[in-house]
C-alpha cells in the first residue's frame, strides 16, 4: 500500500485564459490558501487542450490532470467549452475502457470571478488524489 500520508500528488492544470486562469489569479491576489500541488499551464481555451496533452502527463506519471474552462454558455469563443465537454466524455470512456482510472482527469467550469471555487477545486482534487494514491504509471516504464 502506498504511504498516502506522505504522498503529495502532482497535478497538471490546463486553464483557459479568459476564465479559470483569471480565477486562479484572483485566488492568488485574494491571498486564498490552497495546496501547492498544482502546475498551471495557461491555454487560450479549454477546447484547445488536445487529449494528447492530458495523456502525456498521465502516462509520464502525473497524479492528476485538471482542465479548467468557462461555464457553459460563457465561452470567450462562443462554443469552445461545449466541444471540450464532448471531448472529455470521449476521453473518460477511453480511459475507463483501457483500464485507467478516469477520476484522475477533472474538468471544471470556473469563472474569472470564482477565485474561491478555484482554491476549493484544488483542495478537493488533492484530497481525492491522496485517497487514490500515486498514479501507477509512475513505475510503468515499458510504455
Amino acid at each position, binding site marked *: 500500500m502506498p504511504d498516502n500520508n506522505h504522498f503529495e500528488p502532482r497535478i497538471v492544470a490546463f486553464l483557459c485564459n479568459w476564465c479559470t486562469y483569471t480565477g486562479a489569479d484572483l485566488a492568488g491576489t485574494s491571498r486564498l490558501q490552497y495546496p501547492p500541488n498544482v502546475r498551471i499551464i495557461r491555454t487560450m481555451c479549454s477546447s484547445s487542450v*488536445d487529449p*494528447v496533452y492530458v495523456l*502525456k502527463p498521465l502516462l*509520464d506519471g502525473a497524479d492528476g490532470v485538471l482542465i479548467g474552462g468557462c461555464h457553459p454558455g460563457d465561452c470567450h469563443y462562443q462554443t469552445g467549452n461545449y466541444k471540450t*465537454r*464532448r471531448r472529455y466524455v*470521449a476521453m473518460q470512456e477511453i480511459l475507463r475502457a483501457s483500464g485507467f482510472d478516469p477520476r484522475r482527469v477533472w*474538468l471544471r467550469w470556473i469563472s474569472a470571478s470564482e477565485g474561491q471555487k478555484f482554491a*476549493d477545486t484544488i483542495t478537493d482534487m488533492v484530497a481525492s488524489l491522496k485517497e487514490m494514491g500515486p498514479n501507477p504509471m509512475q513505475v510503468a516504464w515499458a*510504455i
Partner: protein
Amino acid sequence: MIGLFPLKDGDALTAVRSFLQTLLSNDVVDALYVPLESAEGQILPALVTDPARLESANPLAPVMLVNGARAISALTQKKAPARLGAVLRSCETRALVELVKLQQASLEDVLLIGVDCPGTYELADYQAIQKEALFALEDALQAAGRGEQLEGPDLRLACQMCTQPIPEQADIHLHIYGEGLAGGLFVEIGEELAEKLGLTPVLDYQVKKRQQVIEQVLGDKQKLREAEISALQARLGSNGSIAQMFAACLRCHNCMTACPICYCKTCLFRTAAFDHPPEHYLNAAYRKGAIRLLGDTLLFHLTRMNHMAASCVSCGMCSSACPVDIPVGLIFSTIGTQVQAAFGYTPGKDLQEPLPLVTFQANEWNEIGEVK
C-alpha cells in the same frame, strides 16, 4: 428496382466486368475506381478510364490492400473532377461517409457501386489460396452467396466479426447473398440508371431467400463479434494490460497510415513534438527508475484513439498493417464501440448526422464540470 445482368461465359466475374464496362461505355461515369488484377495476380485498386482495362477488373477477389475510402478522398477532395464511379465494400463506403463529414472527400458526382462483401483474407492467406489453388474464386463466391465458407484459411478477424457486410449507401448495389450468382448478377439500381444500361426489372426476385442468408450470416458474425469484444474488455479491465498489448509496438505508424479515418496531413507523432533534449530522457529515467526508449508508444495509440475512435468503422486495416500482430483493430473496435455508444453515434451510416466531437448541444452532460 432489381435488375439482372446475364452471365456471359457462365461466371460471375465476367458478368461484373461487363457490367462495369457498360458504365463506362454508356457514359454513366467518366472514370471508375475498382481493383484490377495485375499479370502477377495481385489485386490492386486502380482508377480506370479505358473500358478495355476492365477486362482485368476484379472487385470480387476476397482481399483488400487498402481501404478505398482513402483513394476516393484523394480523388475527390472538395469535388470530383469528373463523374466518378467507385466500386467499394461496405467498410470502405462507411469510411468514405466519415471522410466526407470530416471534409476530406466529396460524394458530389460520385456514383457508389457497392458489392455485398463475403469478407476478405489477409494478403498472405490470399496468396496461399492462389498459389496452392485451395479453391476457385467462383466456387467461394457461390458458397458465400449461400452463406457458407469454403474450407481454408480464416477470413481477417475484422471480416469474421463484421456485422455490416451489406453496403447501405450505394447507388448501385451488386448482390452476392441470396440467389448466389448462378443465374446472373442481380443489381439493385435506380430506374433511370437501369434504363440507361438496358436492365429490365426482375419480377420473381427471391427477396426472402436473400434475407434468410443475410440473417444467418449476420447472426454468426454478431455472435463472434460479441464474444471477441467481451473477451477483450475483460482483458482491458485490469490495470496496465493495454500497455502490455501495445508493448511489442515498433512505432512504425503503419496502423495510422492504413487507417482510412486518420487523415491529418501532419500527424503530431510525425513531427518533432516529442523529441526532447537529452537531459529530458535522463530526468524521466531518474523519475521512473527506467524508461523505454524510444517511448511514447502507448501515448500514440491512446491519442489516435481519442482522435478517431468515434469514427472507427471496424475495417481492421490497422491490424492487417501491423508487422507485430497487435490486434489494433479489435482494440479500436472495442473501445470505439463504447465511445460511439456514449454519443449514440453509428459511423458511416448517415451523411446528415454530425460527427459527435464536432457538434454539441447546450443542454447535455450538465453534471460534468460541476462539483458532484
